């Protein structure tokens, strides 16, 4: 639970107790005392006659001798430590997906943004190659290698892929009722409900709100989902119901 102190500096607050009191207390007048202050005798430790090297020094020497003697044997072992593949955390993926949605209004259109079991597939379209390049660098897609830009004649597409996992722990959204338990779509969103899908059409801000409500309810990874642009201001968001 956070510790509120509105005397602190505005902005994002830390969990630590904020000490930022304001004081206008008047300085107390010093009361003169007749009792002489007791001077504390400073304890002086007796000087060591002989300074021995510390235990850690012996340890280092021992380790060095051990390594020199046994190096030929150790070097032949195959420890078989596999390199961790560079993967994005789910939070980073959510962050990147939100950036994709937020910037779609100005720079490009979202052809599709699919949350599937295994990957998030992002497909964007733009008329300007420099926009695509800039977006690619800003999103830092290239370090993962899962991005392609193609096209010509002022019509370019970009396809990107992030690792993603649909966690099926029996808690996924299986009916419209369970979906609306977590999400309040608002008045301005049109929803079409079919047997296996809920498709919603609304403004970018409404769709972001739905996306974040699912994120807050920890339901983003429970079902497959897709987002498409209709025009600069409107998106379609479809959630596939689990059976």
């Amino acid at each position: 639970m956070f510790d509120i102190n509105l005397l602190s500096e505005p902005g994002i607050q830390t969990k630590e107790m904020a000490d930022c009191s304001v004081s206008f207390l008047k300085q107390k007048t010093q009361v003169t005392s007749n009792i002489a202050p007791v001077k504390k005798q400073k304890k002086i430790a007796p000087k060591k006659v002989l300074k021995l090297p510390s235990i850690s020094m012996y340890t280092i020497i021992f380790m060095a001798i051990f390594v020199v003697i046994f190096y030929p044997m150790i070097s032949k072992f195959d420890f078989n430590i596999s390199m961790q593949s560079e993967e994005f955390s789910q939070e980073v993926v959510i962050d990147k997906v939100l950036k994709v949605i937020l910037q779609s209004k100005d720079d490009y259109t979202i052809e599709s943004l699919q949350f599937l079991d295994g990957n998030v597939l992002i497909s964007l379209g733009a008329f300007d190659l420099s926009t695509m390049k800039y977006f690619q660098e800003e999103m830092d897609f290239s370090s993962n290698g899962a991005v392609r830009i193609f096209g010509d004649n002022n019509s370019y597409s970009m396809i990107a892929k992030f690792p993603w996992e649909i966690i099926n722990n029996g808690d996924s959204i299986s009916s419209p009722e369970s979906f609306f338990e977590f999400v309040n779509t608002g008045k301005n969103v049109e929803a079409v409900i079919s047997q296996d899908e809920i498709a919603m059409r609304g403004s970018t801000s409404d769709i972001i709100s739905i996306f974040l409500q699912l994120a807050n309810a920890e339901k983003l990874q429970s079902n497959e989902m897709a987002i498409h642009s209709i025009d600069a201001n409107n998106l379609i968001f479809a959630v596939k119901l689990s059976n």
Partner: protein
Amino acid sequence: MIAVSQSGKYFQYLEWIPSEGGPLITKFGQIKSAEDFSFKNGNFTTILEEIINESSEASPRFQLSIDTQNIFISHTQYNSSDFIEWQKNQISDPEFETLYDTFSFPFFNSSSLLNIHLHKELKTGIVNSVQDVNGELRTINIGIFSAEIGAKQWFHAHQLESYSIWKMGKNHIDQLLIVKGGEFKTLVTFKRLKNSVKILNLVGSTTLLEKMTSQIESWMSEGLDEFMHMERLFVYSTELNAKDLKKLVESEIRNVTLLNPFEVLDISTEEKINPLKGATFAEMGVGFRGIDV
């Protein structure tokens, strides 16, 4: 140390000193402010002067809890600088930032933010009033959040897996603060109707909230033995004649505790405090921030 809390037109104060057995209450009381009271106009100075006149402290040190009415609360659903900037552009005009300070508190593993917007002039007015009385101000906290500190300091709520603070307000408009695993979950303002509850404002998760509100409805219609899904529910009201709070306490629900600091703290006088009256001092929690009780 003097804890001061504001609720509507009333200011309550509670003065305590450290003692061998923990904090010892030496003075407490209530002051009614003027009809046109405003922190911005420096009216708080008069309140502080009245408190100091009653107090024995030569160097008055205050911890303040202000009424929720003085602030705005909003919710940023995603904690990223791009999103915060985008949301700010969507919901406010540039004037807002010049007038208000925004304090953002991360929750949901730092993925969401609870934002408290405080008028800059109001804060300046409070600080100026403390300067007028040559005092010291250590904290400015807010209503139910201050009561939550009280639940932790007086009743060791932080040792529970989950707990709620329920403030029963005027005209059946209440606030409920839900804490789980030591983390903020939900702050909701709701109105109690005849047999149901109407949500007026919500920040945070709805998961536990729905279970809680349905049980509040059950209590209102047919009574309740225990609030499920919550280890303990701390209740209080800042209203002097809180009939519904009396009814709730008399229901003897197993895990409901009246947030009455006088039940735990020692008082220097022999005065007996009615528990319901004692619970009107629940928002004094801020005065015991970081203190072992």
